[in-house]
């Protein structure tokens, strides 16, 4: 803070000079500048600094993005058109669209697409709904409000790996805590590993657990930014709390909801660690019937377990294209919603 105060103290004299004027000019006007040659050199250096520095500041991001995302992304496209095997990395032969035709005619691929979609929906929808509810509660004046918020965020501190290991044990068939709790309400033991819906529910619940608090904080921030007058006029119109929530809070949250939907969609499309570890030893298969093998898992399985990196590349690009289509649909829906307002 001290440094910025010093800088502030300097701001008074600066008012005389137009912003962006080279320092040499200001000094020259006071008649104590350097000799002409050095002065123009310094001025040039200053101008160059002004021009180049923004690019220098953003360049680390773009260089690293180029080197570790953009170039690899293009290479992935290139490899997806080749036969690349993990066992013989040097031998890369042109395969045309074979990896893609192979993929699109594979039941496992479509199974993975379907699973990714199903798990994506049953993890995102309850998660965001619960997050809005939780945010609404956290938005009341609470005792120890910070403590509540930190507590709701602790699952976010737990890594995918740690969380999944714990949930896998909670969901075990014999002696699992979940099945034991269910027996009190008269539900027989569920085979969370083997059954279709059971395993997908279990995997989704890990995602829901880890991210609900995080999203709640995002919604809470948005709720606190809603102007109070909106509630005041709603109250004057006789709206009760629920009506205020329904007709003031929710519409005001719409941009934030869309933001979280987009982010969650991106996350759901890439879902990988949870189903991998949920499967234990043969995790990359996504269960004995591939019942929870997601696209991310399928890619890892094909690339690093089966050893077909060309096909894995094709899966990665298919995943990206699906994501782009979903994003486009999201945007179209948003525009339609906005127009209908």
């Amino acid at each position, binding site marked *: 803070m001290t440094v910025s105060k010093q800088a502030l103290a300097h701001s008074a004299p600066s008012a005389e000079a137009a912003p962006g004027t080279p320092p040499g000019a200001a000094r020259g006007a006071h008649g104590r500048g350097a000799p002409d040659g050095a002065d123009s050199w310094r001025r040039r250096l200053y101008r160059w600094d002004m021009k180049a520095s923004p690019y220098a500041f953003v360049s680390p991001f773009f260089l690293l993005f180029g080197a570790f995302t953009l170039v690899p*992304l293009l290479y992935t496209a290139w490899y997806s058109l080749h036969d690349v095997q993990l066992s013989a990395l040097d031998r890369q032969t042109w395969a045309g669209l074979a990896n893609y035709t192979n993929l699109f005619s594979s039941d496992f691929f479509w199974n993975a697409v379907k699973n990714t979609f199903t798990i994506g929906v049953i993890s995102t929808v309850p998660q965001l709904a619960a997050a809005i509810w939780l945010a609404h509660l956290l938005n009341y004046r609470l005792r120890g409000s910070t403590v509540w918020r930190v507590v709701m965020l602790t699952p976010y501190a737990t890594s995918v790996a740690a969380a999944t290991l714990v949930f896998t044990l909670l969901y*075990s068939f014999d002696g699992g805590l979940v099945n034991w709790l269910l027996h009190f309400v008269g539900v027989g033991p569920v085979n969370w590993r083997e059954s279709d819906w059971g395993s997908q529910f279990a995997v989704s619940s890990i995602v829901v657990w880890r991210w609900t608090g995080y999203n709640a904080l995002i919604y809470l921030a948005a709720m606190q930014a809603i102007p109070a007058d909106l509630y005041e006029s709603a109250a004057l119109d006789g709206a009760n709390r629920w009506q205020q929530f329904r007709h003031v809070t929710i519409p005001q949250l719409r941009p934030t909801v869309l933001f979280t939907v987009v982010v969650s969609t991106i996350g759901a499309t890439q879902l990988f660690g949870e189903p991998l570890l949920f499967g234990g030893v043969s995790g990359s298969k996504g269960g004995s019937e591939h019942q929870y093998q997601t696209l991310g898992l399928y890619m890892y399985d094909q690339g690093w377990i089966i050893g077909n990196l060309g096909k894995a590349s094709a899966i990665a690009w298919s995943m*990206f294209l699906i994501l782009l289509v979903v994003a486009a649909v999201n945007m179209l829906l948003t525009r339609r919603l906005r127009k209908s307002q």
Partner: protein
Amino acid sequence: MTVSELSLPPAQVAVRDARRARGSRRGRMTGAGKQLHAGPLTYVVLVVFALASLAPLVWTAVAASRTDRRLAQTPPPLWFGGNLFKNLQAAWEQAGLGTAMLNSVIVAGTITVSTVVFSTLAGFAFAKLRFRFSALLLLLTIGTMMVPPQLAVVPLYLWIADLGWSNQLQTVILPSLVTAFGTFFMRQYLLQALPSELIEAARVDGASSLRVVWHVVFPAARPAMAVLGLLTFVFAWNDFLWPIIALNQQNPTVQVALNSLGTGYVPDQAVIMAGALLGTLPLLIAFLLFGKQIVGGIMQGAVKG
């Protein structure tokens, strides 16, 4: 002033203070939920949410203090047993968690420092400097968040094989040295927290861009840099996909070690739980110490996100 207060942009602080003032004048504000006192029912529901958030973690510790055989029995244990230290030790040795922890500290620490510095520089440029294509480049930066990491891992894997870098830590550090999220986060903060007059004043004094960054931008950005550092550390500590491809049990990070622990052929569940507990402990401690700042950071990143 606490860090989290500082981390609020001045405009927000002003709005908040104004609201508080208004609220207190009227005794109670009609609308905005925050000013309504929570009823008992609210607390009940919050306790349920809190239990749901904490119970799996507490139960991890319970399971880590039992034996594998006990964990397979019904009813499952609900209270601590006497095997915690034995299991922690077993996890530490079997999964190489000592190396893993050290590696994760190196990896996450390096990524954190670098991300914070580079993101602040780029965020400053986007927030306060005028340059050609800046709007386009910013849009591009945000757009890069859409690209799944899966799109890059195959070539990266082939490159590190070529370079003979398999199993070396730089393979997981280099790709994460700066993030689009960090850049955007710092831009949003500096847009409001750094008055342009300060920069102009320093300029008029003849300060070079680097001096401006050092003496004006970094001091103004410090609270947000701290928050970004915490968020980045959590992210880097928990990163999963690329580390399990690039590294193996010879030289693991914590997540890689947990992965091999969980996919081992003779799984001792109590030891696995001890490993999960150990691997999460550093972040839980960080949350205990800096939870308020982390919460503030996420909320702040959100509003304008």
